[in-house]
């Protein structure tokens, strides 16, 4: 219906009044609320857009957004949701699960969780505490709280999106009201996530937003985040740091960028865009009866994930091919067990059937980049970035397997070649003030970010002490960056270093044993405010290191394991116990 809210008496020319009526008259409540906020903000800022719009006439609906993130994907989506929510007249508060106090949830009326799954179905390291509280006895009731959950994961893992699933169940069990259904998203989550966010925000926005003022963001945000576009780099150094006698291969990769390296900080990673092993793709196409399709071949080598075998893949295979045995496999509920340690190629080899290009494509997903901790500081290498990449090779079900990205780097990239990368900032694994002490635990490739730390602390002449724990197989053949560490100890960039080599002695020695041996000084450093960093293997190492630290506390302070555990939890809450594990 046509109405003219602007009275003829308004201080405007007639044609202006008509124009205004045409806009305001047809405006939705939300649009009006927005205009109100806009004008108020415009005024308050004396003509130029203000950072802080006028206080709303009636408080906007609060929306609590909690994310559990390790490598930043969930965190970014949380930001997107907040933006969309604000547009719709909601008042979002974004909380990193690392800082979540459960009481906050009880007072929340609308709640969105975005949770990634890590390790083998574990929560992201820094979310562990709050996650356990949420799952534990003491968790508060959430009667009436409206919620929705977005789960991030990777179908390559058996426990796909487990953490998101668990949180979703738990919120309901605690009395929460599921108003948006959960989605479980794979590595190619961008579009589906955007869609889910749109729907969720709609659902969570109260039907009548009337009479409210929407906070208008005049875009005066602080410094914009470092550019994270895909850039091409030239490989200026490509060396296997393991000795020719080692059974490991760890590549030191130096990248240089024409227009300057991405603005990375110590602790950040680079996403590296790999290509598949042509030989592997050829075999896959041969088995699928698609050998000779050059277009498909080129496309598969560059853009498709040709190894991952998930339940989803098996189901699609059964669906599209109608293969009896595969159907049976699913029917008998054996599929899950069967795919363990297997790849797409095993499926096609074991249950052969001619496939057309489209079916084969449907069985794959986009080839995802792999993250690698940056092992250098721009303050020392300026336009370069260094990576430390361990070639993943193993045997399973009678086949030699090769990790895609690591072997792309180890076997097919060479000095002078080029590679595409993208900055993956990680502000949760950054250095403290230069005067603080740091303890770094980084066995294997876990030592990469600490080379960046040490270079950085040298460049800024940090006054704080730094202590590195490194470990690998053998002293003689696997001591990564040995000369660099020796130099750092000489020039003081590194105060102290302890090493653990597991295969030099009959009984294996790991970094956690060294932490235990040095427990007295270790606790002394931590009491003095030192930061404790752990990087590398998530499956065993990170857990063993934490356990060792708890035992160290208990022993040095002669307190109960419970008290010691609390001491470490406190470190985590104070963000002095930081992890970047994979």
């Amino acid at each position, binding site marked *: 219906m046509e109405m003219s809210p602007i009275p003829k008496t308004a201080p405007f020319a007639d044609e202006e009044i008509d124009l205004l009526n045409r806009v305001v008259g047809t405006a939705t409540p939300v649009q009006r609320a927005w205009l109100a906020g806009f004008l108020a903000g415009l005024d308050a800022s004396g003509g130029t857009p203000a950072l802080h719009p006028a206080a709303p006439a009636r408080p906007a609906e609060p929306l609590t957004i909690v994310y559990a993130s390790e490598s930043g994907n969930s965190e970014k989506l949380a930001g997107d949701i907040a933006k969309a929510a604000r547009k719709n007249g909601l008042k979002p508060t974004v909380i990193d699960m690392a800082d979540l106090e459960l009481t906050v949830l009880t007072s929340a009326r609308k709640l969105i969780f975005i949770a990634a799954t890590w390790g083998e179905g574990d929560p992201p390291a820094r979310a562990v505490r709050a996650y356990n509280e949420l799952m534990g006895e003491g968790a508060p009731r959430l009667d009436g709280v409206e919620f929705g959950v977005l789960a991030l994961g990777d179908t390559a893992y058996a426990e796909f999106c487990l953490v998101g699933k668990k949180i979703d169940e738990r919120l309901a069990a605690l009395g929460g009201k599921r108003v948006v259904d959960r989605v479980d998203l794979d590595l190619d989550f961008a579009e589906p996530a955007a869609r889910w966010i749109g729907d969720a925000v709609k659902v969570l926005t109260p039907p009548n937003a009337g009479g409210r003022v929407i906070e208008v963001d005049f875009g005066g945000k602080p410094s914009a985040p470092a550019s994270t576009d895909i850039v091409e780099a030239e490989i200026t150094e490509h*060396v296997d740091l393991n*000795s020719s006698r080692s059974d490991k291969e760890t590549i030191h990769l130096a990248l240089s960028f024409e227009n300057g390296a991405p603005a990375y900080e110590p602790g950040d990673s680079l996403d590296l865009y790999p290509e598949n092993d042509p030989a592997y793709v050829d075999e896959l196409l041969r088995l699928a009866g698609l050998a000779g399709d050059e277009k498909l071949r080129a496309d598969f080598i560059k853009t498709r994930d040709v190894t991952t075998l998930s339940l989803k893949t098996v189901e699609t295979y059964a669906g599209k091919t109608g293969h009896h045995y595969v159907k049976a496999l699913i029917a008998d509920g054996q599929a899950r067990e069967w795919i363990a340690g297997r790849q797409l190629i095993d499926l096609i080899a074991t249950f052969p059937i001619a496939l057309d290009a489209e079916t084969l494509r449907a069985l794959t997903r986009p080839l995802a980049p792999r993250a690698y901790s940056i092992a250098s500081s721009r303050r020392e290498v300026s336009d370069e970035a260094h990576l430390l990449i361990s070639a993943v090779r193993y045997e399973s079900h009678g086949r030699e397997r090769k990790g895609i990205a690591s072997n792309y780097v180890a076997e097919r990239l060479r000095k002078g070649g080029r590679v595409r990368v993208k900055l993956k900032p990680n502000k949760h694994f950054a250095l403290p003030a230069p005067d603080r002490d740091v303890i770094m635990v980084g066995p294997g490739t876990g030592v990469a970010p600490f080379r960046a730390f040490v270079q950085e602390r040298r460049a800024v002449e940090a006054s704080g002490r730094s202590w590195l724990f490194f470990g690998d197989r053998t*002293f003689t053949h696997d001591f990564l960056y*040995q*000369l660099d560490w020796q130099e750092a100890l000489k020039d003081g960039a590194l105060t102290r270093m*302890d090493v653990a080599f597991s295969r030099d*002695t009959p009984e294996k020695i790991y970094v956690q044993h060294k932490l235990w041996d040095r427990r007295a000084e270790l606790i002394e450093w931590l009491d003095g405010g030192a930061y404790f960093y752990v990087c590398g293997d998530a499956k065993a190492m990170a857990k063993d290191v934490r356990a060792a630290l708890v035992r160290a506390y208990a022993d040095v302070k002669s307190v109960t394991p419970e008290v010691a555990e609390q001491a470490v939890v406190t470190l985590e809450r104070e963000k002095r116990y930081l992890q970047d594990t994979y």
Partner: protein
Amino acid sequence: MTDEVSRNERIKEASDYLRGTLEQGLREEITGAIIEDDAQLVKFHGMYLQDDRDLRPERTRKKMEKAFAFMIRVRIPGGVLTPRQWLMLDKVARDYGNGTMRLTTRQTVQLHGVIKSNLKATLKAIDTVLLNSIAACGDINRNVMCNVLPEQSRAHAAAIALARSISDDLLPHTPAYREIWLDGERIAGGEGEVVEPIYGKTYLPRKFKVVVAVPPSNDVDIFAHDLGYIAITDDAGKIAGWNVIVGGGMGMTHGEPDTYPRIAEVMGFCRTEDVLKVSEAVVTVQRDWGDRRNRKHARLKYTIEDRGLEVFRAEVEKRSGVRLAPAKPYTFTSTGDRYGWTEGLNGRGHLTLFVQNGRVQDLPDAAQQSALRTIAQMHDGDFRITPNQNLIIANVPTEKQAAIERIAREAGLLAPWSGLRRNSMACVALPTCGLALAESERYLPELLDALDRKLAAHGLSADDIVIRMTGCPNGCARPYLAEIGLVGKGPGRYNLYLGAAFDGSRMNKLYAEDLDHAGIVEALDPLFAAYARERQKGERFGDFVIRAGHVVASGNGADFHANVRLYEPI
């Protein structure tokens, strides 16, 4: 020549009786090396800091320091081990070393590739079977050698007893070894207390080597050593006393004629009860008279060359209070080992095994190390390392002989090698030896294959011919006492020496320089042919090449470099 004492002298002086800063160096985890000066001191504890030379080219590129590791040389007087001791050495070699054991030309066992962080564990382990590496290297008396298998086993008992008493008597007294490696209590020397009554603060100017021989076997190569005792038996076969010999040594430097190998001279005869007095006197005279300014001129052999044997004997008699009688006659027949079984006392037998170049290992086609482990587990006699890098399973009771022989045979330790290979030795050289100029241990087997084919063609396969190779002129495999001596000059290049006496009493002479593999074979083949054709009854290859005029017989000392007529390859 300056009057400055050599750097090593200052290091010893400042070391507080061989302690230096070793403990501090061991605590530094991020380097496999120790503090520079300590590298000289650690030798006195029986260890050498080495690095794997095969890996040198790649290390810096890989951002790694040299592949440092230690060689540990165990002290084993006379080379006699119990099976339990053998098993322990075999275990530490696999747990901490490069997996192999190396039987040496001085009857010891060397472990290679022990990294710094494993040194203490290794030495503690061998300590549990009463073995150590004290003074196995360094400017001090080394392992005392002893003839392994005399025809008269009764004489061997006396000889080994003598070797052990000399070894004990000349041990350093400093407690440094126990403190540093076995975490023993630091024993502070009381005021003015004499820590080293024989050696003093700076020990000897250079290494010092003692041997005991029982004729007719000269397997210990007695003339290559600083001090030696030759058993003189009476008609009843009992030991009457010992001829004392002094001033032998092999080492020299290419292109420096004032360095040369030297045959020890017989100084006189003494009774068993005087041996320690004489030994101590010889050591202290060398301690005071030896050249401490130039390490290339510091061995006893040069002291005696410079002062003359008479003057030296007089001083030794003065200090020891022992009047040396004129030397008694003796005859040596050979320097080699006698393979297979030999009869021992009360029905027990001794089995001599051939271990190529002393490297005890499991070869692809012959698990020798494992075989010896099995033997050690069932054996209750002893193991004896021969001066030719071989091994004897000694004192095997009749009932066990068949079983032990079977195991040894299956592992190729009793293979029917040619007379040349049976009398061959090669020093360690590459990749561990820091002084090697050319390959030795890793190359000799291949050269022998080629030479064996030539010898077979001339029907000489069964003839005993002594051949020895070293990777540099230091002479670790006593190449100058071999009928055929090959000494490394540079990568793939060797000097060829000919004409030493089969019984070890005469050195050889340079015959050709800088030969490569083909050159060596070409140089020797016609000589083998001539030997097969023209030799007189029982004539040795070393004597033949002299009689036939291919080389001039070497006299002693500096004469080694004289009258060299180089053969021209055609």
